[in-house]
């Protein structure tokens, strides 16, 4: 009998094709929007997690203060030196401390050239930033001391300069300085900002400073990247770092730090929370359109009930119990809701996948999204149909038969 009701519902819907389509459209847009927003939110979360995956553990950034205070000593602007970073390395609970110098440079190999991010550091950078060496070997601390002309290149640089050839052992030139490629880094892909993390050349900071930049202040670095052991209390370790640098910089008690120790891990948590809040916000806004779509169904169904007053009277006279009339109209609204949800789901998924591949992000498809679409279909269908079904159910057959 339920099958017959479903058939009757389908016949009814398809007898008013345009009207049914327009009503379904409301749900298609509503569900499509929600699916799209959920996918966007999940993509953001995925990208955040992926970018920060290379930042596992308790990370801290030590850099000179950006705020120029009145009490600048010796007329020099605040700075962090490689010795500062080395000193931090010796503290209790510090797993790794890598000095960092930022630069960009054009690397040349034969007829090929490629401009990449140049990072002067020590091998500790590989620990702090979770870089793996896929081919070849990293340079050593001895190499750093000696300012050896060795570099590690990222997957993109390897691709652009060497194509399918093996870069290990080859010599590239940066600012005419010959540098031997000792290793290739394992690919990481895009980061949160959309930057290609593989477009990188890691070089001993000593080599960068002395051989390439020819700097007279070889020991000044942009900042220090510090990894605190997992078992160590982060706040305590940060305090230790602060005390050490204050003492090294001869900062008197009560005076401001001329440096900053930034808790990267806390930042990550904040970013993740923002990502989550963003996802929820987007989905909620999209849900509003779903409410509108639902109202559309209710509107159409109410009109339908009025139009079919006589038909309802006939059915009742011929023996349809109230529940069958109610079920018939509820089935119609659920059917519309279902079709709309299915199409909306398909469209939302398709658009999010296409957008993802155009923008270069991986868009996850979760079972939650499918379950959500299904639940929406039923709930919206039932809620929208309840009022019209109730109205139809309680029509007096005698009155209904008289209706023109």
């Amino acid at each position: 009998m339920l099958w017959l009701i479903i058939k009757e519902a389908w016949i009814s819907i398809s007898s008013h094709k345009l009207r049914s389509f327009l009503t379904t459209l409301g749900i298609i847009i509503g569900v499509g929007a929600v699916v799209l927003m959920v996918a966007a939110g999940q993509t953001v979360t995925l990208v955040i997690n992926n970018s920060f995956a290379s930042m596992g553990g308790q990370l801290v950034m030590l850099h000179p203060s950006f705020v120029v205070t009145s009490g600048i000593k010796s007329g020099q602007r605040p700075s962090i030196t490689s010795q500062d970073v080395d000193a931090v390395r010796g503290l209790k609970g510090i797993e790794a401390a890598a000095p960092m110098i930022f630069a960009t440079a054009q690397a040349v190999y034969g007829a090929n050239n490629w401009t990449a991010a140049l990072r002067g550091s020590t091998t500790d950078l590989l620990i702090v930033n979770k870089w793996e060496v896929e081919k070849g070997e990293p340079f050593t601390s001895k190499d750093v001391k000696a300012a050896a002309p060795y570099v590690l290149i990222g997957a993109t640089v390897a691709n652009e300069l060497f194509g399918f050839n093996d870069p290990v052992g080859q010599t590239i030139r940066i600012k005419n300085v010959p540098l031997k490629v000792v290793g290739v880094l394992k690919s990481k892909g895009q980061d949160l900002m959309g930057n290609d993390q593989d477009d990188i050349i890691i070089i001993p900071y000593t080599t960068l400073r002395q051989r390439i930049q020819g700097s007279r202040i070889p020991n000044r670095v942009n900042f220090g990247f510090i990894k605190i052991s997992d078992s160590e209390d982060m706040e305590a370790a940060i305090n230790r770092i602060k005390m050490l640098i204050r003492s090294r910089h001869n900062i008197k008690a009560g005076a401001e730090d001329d440096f900053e120790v930034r808790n990267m891990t806390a930042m990550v948590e904040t970013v993740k929370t923002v990502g989550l809040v963003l996802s929820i916000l987007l989905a909620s806004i999209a849900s509003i359109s779903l409410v509108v779509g639902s109202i559309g169904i209710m509107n159409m169904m109410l009109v339908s009930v009025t139009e079919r007053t006589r038909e309802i009277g006939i059915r009742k006279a011929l023996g349809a119990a109230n529940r069958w009339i109610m079920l018939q109209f509820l089935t119609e609204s659920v059917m519309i809701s279902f079709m709309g949800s299915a199409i909306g789901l398909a469209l939302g998924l398709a658009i999010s996948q296409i957008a993802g591949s155009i923008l270069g992000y991986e868009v996850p498809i979760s079972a939650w999204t499918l379950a959500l679409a299904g639940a929406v279909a039923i709930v919206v269908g039932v809620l929208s149909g309840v009022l019209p079904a109730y109205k139809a159910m309680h029509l007096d057959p005698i009155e209904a038969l008289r209706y023109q």
Partner: protein
Amino acid sequence: MSNEPVIELKHIGKTYFMEGGLSQEVLKDINFTVTKGEFVAIMGPSGSGKSTLMNILGCLDRPTVGSYILAGQEVSHLSDNQLAEVRNKSIGFVFQNFNLLMRRTIADNVSLPLIYRGMSDKARRETALKYIDMMKLAGNQDRIPNQLSGGMQQRVAIARALATEPTIILADEPTGNLDSTTSDEIMELFTDLNKAGKTIVLVTHEPDVASYATRLIRITDGRKEYDGLVKNYKELSK
């Protein structure tokens, strides 16, 4: 024609209660019995209460007082859903304006009441075709009502009424929307059905139509004024 009663009305009354404490007694103490195979015409001027009586007979409405036994079952106090079941089982309606579903095929229309019995698609179509054939409408099963003449549409309605094999056929001004030739055809059809054993109750205000029946019940001001053979009713031609 056996003496088995199919309709037994005892002291049936219907009062409408309106706002302000006003009430209107539309039917007063109606008593009669219809036995199997009878052909009864119910006549009365407008406002006489014959429509109300028809609605009660058809189980579309309940009497305020009295007992109505239909096919052996007391139906005067049944719930809406129970009445729907009784209608489906025992009443075959034929209306003045046919009351067909205009967007559905003839076959769908005839088999409509069978949906509410849970009959399968196949069985419903078979039954529908049988009665479509009986009403001499073979070949029209996949047309829609608009494509048929008034007389043919009423025959579809009669086929629908017969499809459930009801206890009684209840016809409300069945020829009201038809021309006189077609009216005669339809009334001949009712006569044939009655000869084949169907119990028919016909409500009309036209003497020509009422004269096809054998028994006449006349309602005036809510009361039964006459109950006897049609041919004995002297004022019929007036």
